[in-house]
């Protein structure tokens, strides 16, 4: 079944993106090419639904990804016909141009256009975001970072931008900065379980990068445990959270480090080995349950991503070479 067009297609795996973009002709044909926005016109023509515009936006994204430029252009034309050239539609137009650009010269030209638009109105968020994404795509990471910081300066409640900043720092290996930016996201969305898990992953990678001997290792591992635990607390049977928890506890058990000095850093010291052991057992049993139900396609267990389940199975089989295949 093709995924719903209401949801953002950015994170979909390629096969599903293809399925989404193949829906484009159907959607384009079944909905009218122009929708009147005047009150009188709407009496006679088809009624407009807000979902339709979201669908168009998502179609543009997935069609560009799969190389169906014609359909993307058609979707964009309809958006222009309805909304005129507002900021968001302009940004989508820029996106289409970016996708079709052949060489660096053309990209530079698009970048100049963005700059020009920002000169007219320097709080144009969608265009600003596109500009940052383009800078990053061209490899000018430090420019992108400074532009992003500037954006966050006047729009500090933009969780998406904070998350982008975190990812940008992460790609450069600047773990503390990435963690800081992710924490900002958490302030804006304290109940987002995936953000908690993401932060846990960042902490874990930071700890792994600094190595077991460094002083901050234990603290970061302890924090990773806390983040993963919170993500599980916010979401029952959260595969990603249990996966991370298992990863962290397994590594800690393998290190066999004692919680050396519990004096410094009052609340971010490691729990004692027994607790870690129990957390590990819990995560293992939960993961096994999820993998079992999900591979059996039990009713009510079909929401998991196949790749994630496969990864969990691999992790489990590393752990115990026999007996997991049930």
């Amino acid at each position, binding site marked *: 079944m093709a995924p*719903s067009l209401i*949801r953002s297609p950015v994170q979909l795996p*390629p096969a599903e993106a293809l399925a989404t973009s193949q829906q484009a002709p159907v959607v384009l044909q079944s909905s009218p090419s122009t929708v009147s926005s005047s009150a009188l016109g709407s009496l006679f023509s088809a009624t407009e639904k807000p979902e339709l515009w979201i669908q168009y936006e998502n179609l543009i994204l997935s069609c560009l*990804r799969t190389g169906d430029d014609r359909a993307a252009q058609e979707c964009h034309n309809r958006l222009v016909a309805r909304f005129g050239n507002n900021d968001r539609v302009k940004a989508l137009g820029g996106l289409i141009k970016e996708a079709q650009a052949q060489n660096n010269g053309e990209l530079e030209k698009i970048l100049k256009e963005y700059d020009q638009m920002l000169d007219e109105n320097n709080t144009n968020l969608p265009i600003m975001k596109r500009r940052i994404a383009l800078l990053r*795509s061209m490899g000018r990471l430090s420019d992108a970072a400074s532009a992003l910081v500037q954006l966050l300066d006047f729009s500090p409640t933009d969780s*998406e931008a904070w998350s982008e900043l975190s990812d940008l720092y992460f790609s450069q290996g600047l773990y503390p900065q990435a963690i800081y930016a992710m924490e900002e996201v958490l302030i804006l969305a304290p109940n*987002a379980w995936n953000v908690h898990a993401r932060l846990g992953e960042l902490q874990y990678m930071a700890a792994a990068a600094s190595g077991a001997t460094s002083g901050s290792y234990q603290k970061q591992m302890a924090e990773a445990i806390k983040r993963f635990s919170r993500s599980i607390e916010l*979401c029952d049977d959260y595969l990603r959270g249990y996966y991370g928890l298992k990863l962290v506890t397994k590594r800690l058990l393998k290190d066999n480090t004692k919680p050396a000095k519990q004096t410094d850093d009052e609340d971010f010291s490691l729990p004692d080995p027994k607790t870690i052991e129990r957390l590990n057992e819990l995560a293992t049993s939960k993961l096994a349950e999820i993998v079992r139900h999900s591979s059996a396609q039990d009713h009510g267990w079909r929401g998991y991503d196949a790749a994630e389940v496969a990864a969990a199975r691999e992790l489990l089989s590393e752990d115990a070479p026999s007996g997991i295949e049930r």
Partner: protein
Amino acid sequence: MMLISKSITAFGSLLLAHACYSAREHSTLQSFRAATSAALTSTPAAATSLPIDIAIETVVAILVILVGLVLGTSSLRPIQWREWAGKIEREGEDGFKDNNGEVNRDYMGNPFDFIEGRPNFVDIRKQRREFTEWVKSQGEQQK
């Protein structure tokens, strides 16, 4: 589920309509008889009582419709955050279908997905490259 609920409701409505019609007929008959017998005697008060079978039919009809309507309500959603989130993760779209088997219109998946997906920052050229590589690898696999 929807079909069962609808047919039960339809059957109940039929019963109710029949009961209503019977009651109406009964009361006109009664008043007619009362009018004619009023000439003889002067006690029309007994005319208001309804035959027991019509009363039973009415109550049964209401109960049948009730069952049909209750079966037809959209399923409730958990209000505890972790249960709700767990449902999204575990069941995906399956958990949010209405009785017709269509996914509810206000179902968004994880509402915080956009924080990680960042659709406004998407690097479309990279995605395109990755997609063409994926297509190539698919083609090689099929050979």
